[in-house]
């Protein structure tokens, strides 16, 4: 980690929201650029090489997934934090699987958003209570034996950490309750993120798309 200020790039097609977030974050972060559609976002991110890209899930011209898939293969250092007003499970799971390090809703309080950006910058994962709930739900199907137990199932400890996040507890509180360090909590969450991104578990995608049709 360097001592320099974190460089943040904003992508959102909602102008009011962009300016609001910009003024909230300007004090702590260097806002190196902003874009309101997919093409401008890709060009801007390539030019400014930010640490963290804060991006909206839904946008004209492809959405967050297109941006992540276009940038991630060539710019390994750029990290993505998805932000959306949508709580649709399929959107959330799709964006995280594309490579976002986390997902927060737009109703998040400014200090929490700043905290989430710091965390993503440091390589940690950011799970909102709702995302934690989605993940628990997606990994809970009994179904057939997982093909890759290392990737397709959560360990009891990871499950426990996720449950605490879903209950709305902060990492610090979780660490205290489980009698582990905050760093260990972060390690568990990052490992869950890895499983979420890499697992080929059939139920995961099916679950996310079926959920609305129940």
């Amino acid at each position, binding site marked *: 980690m360097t001592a320099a200020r974190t460089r943040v790039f904003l992508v959102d097609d909602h102008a009011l929201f962009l300016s609001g977030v910009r003024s909230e974050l300007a004090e702590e972060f260097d806002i190196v650029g902003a874009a309101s559609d997919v093409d401008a976002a890709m060009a801007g991110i390539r030019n400014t090489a930010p640490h963290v890209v804060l991006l909206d899930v839904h946008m004209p011209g492809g959405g967050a997934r297109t941006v992540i898939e276009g940038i991630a293969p060539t710019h390994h250092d750029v990290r993505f934090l998805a932000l959306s007003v949508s709580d649709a499970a399929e959107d959330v799971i799709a964006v995280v699987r594309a490579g976002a390090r986390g997902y927060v809703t737009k109703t998040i309080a400014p200090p929490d958003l700043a905290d989430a950006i710091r965390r993503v910058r440091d390589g940690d994962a950011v799970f909102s209570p709702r995302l934690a709930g989605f993940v628990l739900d997606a990994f*809970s199907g009994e179904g057939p034996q997982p093909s890759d137990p290392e990737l397709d199932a959560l360990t009891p400890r990871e499950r426990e950490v996720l449950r605490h996040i879903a209950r709305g507890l902060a990492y610090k509180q979780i660490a205290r309750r489980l009698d582990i360090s905050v760093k260990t909590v972060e390690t568990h969450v990052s490992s869950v993120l890895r499983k979420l991104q890499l697992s080929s578990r059939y139920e995961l995608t099916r679950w996310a798309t079926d959920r609305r049709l129940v």
Partner: protein
Amino acid sequence: MPGPAALCHHGPATRKPTRSVTPITSTAPPLGRALRLARSATDRVLTGAAGGLGERLAVDPILVRVAFGVLTLAGGMGVLAYLLVWTLSDEPQTEAEVRRPPTSTSTTAFGLVVLGLLLVLRDVGLWLGNGIVWPAALAAVGSAVIWTRSDDAERARLSRLAGIGGPLGALFDPGRVTWVRMGAGALLVAIGMASFLDQAPGLLLAVMVTLLGAVLVLGPWIARLGRQVSDERRARIRSEERAEVAAHLHDSVLQTLALIQRTSEPGEMVALARGQERELRAWLYGRRAPPDADLLSTTLEEVAGRAEEHHQVKIEVVVVGDGPLDERSAAVVRAVGEAVTNAAAHSGADIVQVYMEVDPATITAYVTDEGIGFALADVSEDRRGIADSIVGRMGRYGGTATITSEPGEGTEVHLTVPRHAS
């Protein structure tokens, strides 16, 4: 955890307009889309391959079908060509493909390509005979002349030519062109049929050829009529859906926005906005409860929504797993409701978190707030009563209720109930 500023900071400015909830998974990369041919979703007789090819080449799909037919007569190559196109094309992703309108340039080019193909086929010997293929090709061209739609650019050009005046100009009058076109086309079909019959006379053959001619002249018209009917039906369904969405938004969102404008109390505005947000979210993304049974998750959302409206506190609900609402799960929902009401009314916290997990054996629920908390030893009588009622309710179903709280540390209510009586 979202702090006190959570809601007053984000006003309506953060709400995005509702947009279509198309899953982003269906967006294909633009390059792949440009290379692959998509079969037509709307214009299909067999598989939509000819329709897709026509849309891609800017040629009337009917002409593409006629070309396949003529090539089939010329030694069966049309069937092979059709299968090739079908194999190389994809199922359409969305119904709303961009349709390139047919132009006369591309139509002429397409005709010349087909003619070239015919000559090549004749040269290599895949040929049924001059007497069959050429009359059929002539009749096909006639059919094409009748049924090719003239595009807008062509119409404009014709209007200009008509402006020349005189007998030649009158020939290009767009209204008259249709008749000229039809006459010429019918003539070509007739010549094709006659020259075929001329070589191989016979009554049965004559009847068949006449029928074929009628199909060539009338078939496309009938096909187009059918398509028009289905287009109209689709448009009607779409406008009905639109009306339904508009009606829902009118009854909910617009009413709430009107109410917000008439409210002077900030707290009430936030409560209205929050209640509306919850309702709209449930409508857009929520699980749909089966019509004759309530789900645990939807009931819990309802209970939380009511408490939220009543106490003007944000209540975040996360449910993992789900199940039907029976006697036991209803008891848990009621107990959660009491705990939420209690937290909303007394804790002073801005946000109350509800987490419920449903697995085959047990239902677990947590109600957490970061409010003022209390020392269990010296609780006032009214709070004691609520706690007792929660504990008692869970006890009746063989479950437990634990309340953890410390002054300044918030409160947590933890409920578990087995799903089946032991």
